[in-house]
């Protein structure tokens, strides 16, 4: 059946058990072979140089190697070559290439190494000269906080790793590299604390990462989707962050971090639904403030998905629920509107979505503000023209605002989508429709897992202590245990201050 086919497709992309890497027969390294492979790459430089009377070809990619580096690491040392010191000795960071393996050599050239091809004898030397301009470490633009560390991960894996490693100084912090992507050859790093993280989880992550087959990853969010337990769900099942403190905190809780070279994010596995509503700033704040903010975010979520659909169901099916003054107000504002409430809500919601999308594509952040202001102008005009009721404009605006509350961007998008389900259900079956859709949604969330751990912890807690760090953020002194979600080996023993 169609679904089975679809399922198979997904399985093959995510968890194909049989690694089918193309087995190429190894070719010998010769100049003709090299030239054959490296045609039409205009930034490939081939300079013939003379080393102590010996002719050699210097091959490198111009755009990956900076001139000064080439000068410092290759050309200047080569001047010292004499009878006593051969080129291997004077060149630091160099190695002899395997002459039987052309593919590796080409891969090395493409990833920024400089090749010294000796024309007179069978010797090829590789020098690591990879040097590209890098973005410096800046503060996070997406998950901003007022307090706490401000450095965020960058596109360069090494500098991102350094941000974490300078925080956790321990041999227990393990780092595993994988090379993935048949064309892009991305480096993927899997980080975990060996003494804390759950072994089973680590093994599961390694297996999944190893089995991923794809031509190339441009960003971690793509890669992350391939590791998810239920790829069809609208909800993100792993945490994602650009903040180094967030990633470090997760490691210390026994989670596993995945990073991808070329992408400034880190994925946190496993993660739970409630963590999508938490921000690292909750821990920098006092616990009372943090608890209040978390409560607002969670209730914002509930209100955001139910507000406009309740408008539909009350106006269509349950007018008896309105108190007299609201009844008059609502029916007054609805008298001119030519659409039934479902259509009215859908139109206005879509207008907001469109404005938001347009605002997001505008060059600056001001664009967003303009978009929202534009929305209000359009809204006012629509009310005055009698196309929509003014009460609805308020409700839609509120629910749109509330949907931006979760710090996790993917979750915020999921909320926007789920809302439409509720609106349709309300238009069809009123409040019962909303609730039956809620039941379906809850069931869906309950059945989601993140790396085998239930997504809805701590509603279904593994440890009762999980509830201390959920909607509630208990004082730090009470958070003496690791979360049950990470199934960590040893429980933390953070002694309470006894004075």
């Amino acid at each position: 059946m169609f679904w089975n086919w679809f399922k198979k497709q997904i399985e093959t992309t995510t968890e194909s058990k049989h690694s089918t890497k193309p087995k190429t027969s190894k070719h010998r390294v010769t100049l003709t072979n090299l030239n054959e492979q490296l045609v039409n790459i205009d930034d490939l430089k081939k300079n013939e140089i003379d080393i102590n009377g010996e002719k050699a070809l210097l091959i490198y990619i111009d755009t990956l190697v900076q001139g000064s580096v080439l000068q410092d690491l290759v050309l200047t040392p080569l001047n010292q070559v004499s009878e006593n010191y051969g080129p291997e000795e004077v060149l630091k960071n160099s190695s002899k290439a395997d002459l039987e393996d052309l593919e590796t050599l080409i891969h090395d050239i493409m990833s920024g190494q400089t090749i010294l091809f000796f024309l007179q004898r069978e010797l090829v030397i590789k020098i690591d000269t990879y040097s590209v301009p890098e973005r410096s470490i800046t503060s996070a633009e997406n998950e901003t906080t007022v307090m706490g560390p401000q450095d965020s991960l960058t596109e360069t894996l090494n500098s991102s790793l350094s941000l974490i490693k300078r925080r956790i100084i321990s041999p227990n912090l393990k780092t595993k590299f994988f090379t993935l992507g048949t064309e892009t050859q991305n480096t993927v790093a899997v980080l975990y604390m060996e003494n804390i993280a759950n072994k089973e989880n680590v093994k599961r992550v390694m297996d999944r990462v190893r089995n991923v087959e794809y031509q190339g990853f441009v960003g971690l969010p793509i890669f992350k989707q391939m590791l998810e337990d239920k790829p069809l769900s609208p909800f993100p099942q792993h945490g994602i962050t650009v903040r180094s403190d967030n990633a470090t905190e997760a490691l210390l809780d026994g989670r596993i971090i995945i990073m991808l070279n070329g992408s400034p994010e880190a994925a946190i596995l496993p993660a739970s639904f409630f963590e999508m509503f938490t921000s690292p700033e909750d821990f920098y704040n006092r616990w009372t403030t943090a608890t209040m903010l978390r409560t607002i975010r969670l209730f914002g979520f509930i209100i955001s998905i139910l507000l406009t659909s309740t408008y539909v169901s009350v106006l269509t099916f349950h007018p008896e629920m309105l108190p007299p003054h609201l009844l008059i107000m609502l029916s007054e504002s609805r008298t001119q509107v030519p659409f039934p409430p479902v259509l009215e809500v859908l139109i206005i919601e879509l207008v907001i979505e469109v404005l938001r999308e347009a605002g997001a594509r505008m060059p600056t952040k001001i664009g967003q503000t303009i978009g929202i202001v534009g929305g209000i102008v359009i809204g006012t005009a629509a009310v005055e023209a009698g196309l929509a009721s003014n009460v609805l404009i308020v409700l839609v605006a509120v629910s749109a605002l509330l949907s931006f509350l979760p710090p996790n961007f993917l979750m915020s998008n999921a909320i926007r989508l789920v809302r439409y389900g509720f609106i349709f259900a309300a238009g069809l079956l009123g409040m019962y429709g909303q609730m039956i859709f809620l039941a379906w949604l809850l069931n869906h969330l309950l059945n989601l897992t993140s790396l085998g751990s239930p997504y809805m912890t701590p509603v279904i807690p593994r440890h009762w202590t999980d509830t201390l760090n959920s909607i509630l953020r208990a004082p730090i002194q009470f958070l003496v245990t690791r979360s049950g979600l990470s199934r960590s080996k040893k429980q933390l023993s953070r002694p309470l201050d006894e004075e």
Partner: protein
Amino acid sequence: MDKGNFKKLNKYHVIFLLHCSLGGIALFTIPHNLSHVGYNMWMVVILFGIVAMIFLKPMTSLGSKFPDDTLYVINEKLTGKAVGKLLNLLILIYSTIQVANTSKLYIRLVQSVTMPDYTITMIAITFFIVMIAIINGGIKSIARFSILSFFLTVWMGYYSNWAFADSNFHHLYPRFEHSLKDWGHAFFEGSQIMLGFALIMFFYPYIINQKKAYKHAAIGIWLAIIFIGLICVASIVYFSRWQLENLLYPLLNLYQAVVLSNVERIETLGISLYVLLVLSKASIYLWTAKKGVDALFSKHKNKTWHLYFIASVALFIVLGPIPIYVQALIYDKWIIIAGYVLILLPIFLLMLYKVKNREKRNKGKEASAS
């Protein structure tokens, strides 16, 4: 997730499965069902709790004799293939009708109160689709759903405040003015809220801590009894005798007592939110029925199409053209009698087990003697 034959239900799962298998839609009608004994109904509710506790004991002790088998398997093991199959068939029919009964009562209620100009077809179909989605995750999924549905509906209990504020507590005064027949009537008609606990026999093999299963199940039962009791007490103090006897859904009127400044008539919300509890209860029954089909047609092997099959049968019973008097007979009489038979069944099975064991031991002794 978490499918398959292994122990997977922890204590919270057991407590809330039991909690949800009692109660259910009957909460809406229970004060009406018990109105034969008038204002003494709260005593009947406590009686339900005690009776459930008593009959729970043989169920768990039967379960401990067969820690890995559902009642379907136990039936076949103890009574033989033919009788066992027949028993299983009867249980299957019973639980299917219970699914239909629970959902039909609720669907009718939703239709008549919140959307009188609609037919029940759409409501019923959506209800069953979500139910199937829940059962697809196995018994643990149902248990989790029960936990969540409990916490999402329990706050509605706060609204009983309004009923208590406008009440006459003299009604609670026990007055034994009713004949034994009235008490019997009330007990019989109200027992729909109690019968659900028998389902523990079907999910007992999946419980992790079977030694404490009785304790946890008892907690679940009393949790449910407390809530039913609360509703009964609220109805007693809020209504007159005539109202109790004539109102079909007293809980609705209790909700109507609530006066809030921004919203009125929250019974609409109450009924709609109640879908969570009704779904839990109906799902447990439907899951049981599905296990029954597994037992009868595929030698206890799990087959997904069984679920769709049995769900469509139940849906047909809900929507199908069944004469009203037949419905009344089935839903009000037979189903309750069948429920009692199911409760008494483990006692009979335990006796059978004892007899068989003794025979075996005697044989063993004879063998060793000779």
